[in-house]
Structure formats: C-alpha cells, structure tokens
C-alpha cells in the first residue's frame, strides 16, 4: 500500500510525522494514530468543524480545492485563517508526501 508522510504539529509545538495510507483522510491519519487535538466529532461528514487544521503555507495550494460546504463549516471552526482546512476533506495521496499541518489550540 502506498503511504505518504504527514507531519502534524500540535499547538504546544510537538511534532508527529506519520506514514498515512493513500486514500485515508488527514483526519483519519491523526485519529488512528492518537494524535491529540483533532476531535472529528461527526466522524468525517463535514458537519462539525472539529478536525480543523492549518495547512503549511507552501502546501495550501497543492491541495484539492474546498467544496462549498467546507468553507461554510470553517466559519464555525475555532480561530480559522486563510490556511484553514477540515482535515477530513484532505485525502492523502503520493502528491501529499511531506504535507505539514498545524493543529489549533482547541477545536471549539
């Protein structure tokens, strides 16, 4: 199975680099590996905004663009900025090998 290295940086600064299988979401990679700070209350349905992450600037434009509903949900996220994404909507692929995301201080 193809994997990509994804780096999650907690608000405290601690960093976790994990191999996540292609096809999983960045949210699932975090939850399955017990990375703290990504709650994903709705389970990946783009319905809750508790898997909010900040994508590292140079990676932001390489991601598949947001669907309409994602921007709406980000209105509800905790301290969103222009690099905000819902990690359940970012699907891991070879192109994302090396992706770095930061986790907000809390999810709500």
């Amino acid at each position, binding site marked *: 199975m193809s994997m990509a290295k994804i780096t999650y940086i907690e608000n405290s600064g601690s960093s976790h680099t994990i191999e996540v299988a292609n096809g999983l979401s960045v949210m699932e990679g975090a939850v399955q590996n017990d990375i703290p700070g990504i*709650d994903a*209350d*709705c*389970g990946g*349905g783009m*319905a*809750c*905004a*508790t898997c909010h992450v900040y994508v590292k600037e140079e990676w932001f434009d390489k991601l598949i663009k947001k669907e309409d509903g994602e*921007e*709406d949900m980000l*209105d*509800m996220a*905790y*301290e*969103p*900025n*222009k690099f905000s994404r819902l990690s359940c909507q970012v699907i891991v692929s070879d192109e994302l090998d090396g992706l770095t995301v930061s986790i907000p201080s809390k*999810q*709500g």
Partner: protein
Amino acid sequence: MIKTDTLIIGAGPVGLFCVHQLGIIGLKCEVVDNLDKIGGQCIELYPDKPIYDIPAVPECTGEELTNNLIEQIKAFKTKFHLNERVEEIKKVEKKWITKTNKGTEFESSSIIIAAGVGSFEPRKFPTKEIEKYEGKQILYSIRDKTVFKDKTVSIFGGGDSALDWAIELSNTSKVILVHRRDDFRGMQASINKINKLKEEGKIEIYTKYQLEAAQGKEKIESINIKRDDKTIKKIKTDYVLGFFGLIMKLGPIADWGLNLDKKTVPVNTESFETNKEGIFAIGDICSYPGKLKLILSGFHEGALAARGCFKYAKPDEKYRFEFTTSSKAVKNRLGVEE
C-alpha cells in the same frame, strides 16, 4: 420525581428507535435531550442532507428519518424533556436517580445513554479575556430581545442565525454585522435583505474581521475587531452576539464513573451495558471491537440494550422474544389491529 422503567439520554435516531424497542417489550421510558428539538445530529447537523445507508430506505434526509422515527414510536406516547441536560446520576438501592440542569428528577431501574458525541452547546468566541462578559453583554442565544432596544449590538457570524437576528434587531437597535469572510452562508433571501439594509444605512457590515478584544469595566463598552491583514478597528458597542453554531461536548457524562476510552464508553456487545450495572450505552457514544458509527448499528445496539433493561425493570419476569408480525401482546402495545 418521575418514575419510569428506563431513562434514555439523547433524542437522536438511536435513542428514538430504542424507545420503540423498549415499547414493544412492554417497558416505559422517558427521554431527555439538551437540544430544543427531537432528532439529535440528524436534525442539528444535517437536516437537509440525504442519507443513503438506512436499510430499506434508499434515500432520506436527516429530517425525514427523524419524522419517520417519531411516527414509528407514536403509540408509546413517550414524554420528551427537551432543553434539559442530565447533570447527576446516583444509585439508591436498586434504582438510578437522575437529575437534570432544570431540576427534573427521574427514578428508573436502568439508564440508556444514546448521547452521540455529547450534548450540543453554543460555540464561543476564542478570545479568553472576554469570558467575564459572557452571559451579560456577550451572548450566544437570545431570550429577551427587548434588552437590545436603542442599543448598539455587534453580531458575529455568517449563517442564518446571525443574519436573521441582524435583520430583526435592525428595527430597534443599531446593528453591526461582522463576519470572517466576504461570503455569507445564510439563505439567499436573507443575504439580499442584509445588503438592502446596508444600502439604506440601517446595518454596518465588516467582513474579513474577527473579534480581537473587548474593553469596559463592569459592562462592555467597546470591542476591537481584527482584519485578515492585521488592521484593527475599534467599535463602540453595548452587546456582542456570537452565532457560530453548536459544538458537541461530552459534559457531565464524564463524571459518572463510567469507563471512558477517548470520548466513548466501552460496552459489552451482548447487552450494551457499561461497567455500571443498569447503565447502557448505544450509538456513537459506545465503543467495542469493530464498532461502526452508523445509524443502522445504533438501531441494533438499541434493540439489545432494551432487552438488557428488561431484567432490571421486571426482575421477577422472564423476557420472551416475540415478533411484531405475530405477537398479540406486541400488537396491543403498538396499538395496531389484528
């Protein structure tokens, strides 16, 4: 004190179907939910989104599913206690005594927790220093709109709640609407109305701004809002309203002595009982090997938990399995003709 066989916490689809399963085996129950309506996440998070994986229902929305479940349990005339959150539980002899934040008390021989990811609560402003104004001049819901008359009200948010209140309060208050981006996600008719009010000078709108700080001694006097490009604007205001939707919080359930695994409650898969005798957990809140967070799994879990409640409600009777197609007793309970 309300006496019943089983208290269900959570009026989402799984709690609703569990009412049915308790009802057909002859147990009484009451339901508590912190939301102001029945339906849980289905009604709060995705009332209009189609669901495709309910067995024998090729497609339905969260709202339709909720309405069908309400119809299915109509015969049991179940009492729902909405806008109430269960705070405390304690065991007195063989009964569980449950108390809500409104002071309602229940005595039941079992409790079924069908609380999803917890109770829905308003999302708050991230700014820590404003906490002292919360509940006074900073509000997340409106009980009495007359307090805003002839005052300046700053409303934050881009959805229907923010837009509807901005429109409503613009009749009697000075309204300032602040949103983090240019697009509003409310209904188009509301957006048009807002733009019209802006042209008429009845509403001020600031987009790409978020709340940065608040000033004032006893009461709030002004706030700073910060733009994307870091420019800060100071606004005089009497009230600040935030409409950022709801977030789910596990809340008091965490303090009941139940085993917890992350935010879920481990159960046995025979009856969905937790580590506490007579307390069951079903739906998204329970966990066990192979758990799927699907509504259909929650229905199964509720069916087994209901049977698990039987021995606590009727310790001297033996539970007999019966089909709805053939059992006279079950049909009587459902109020259907032979």
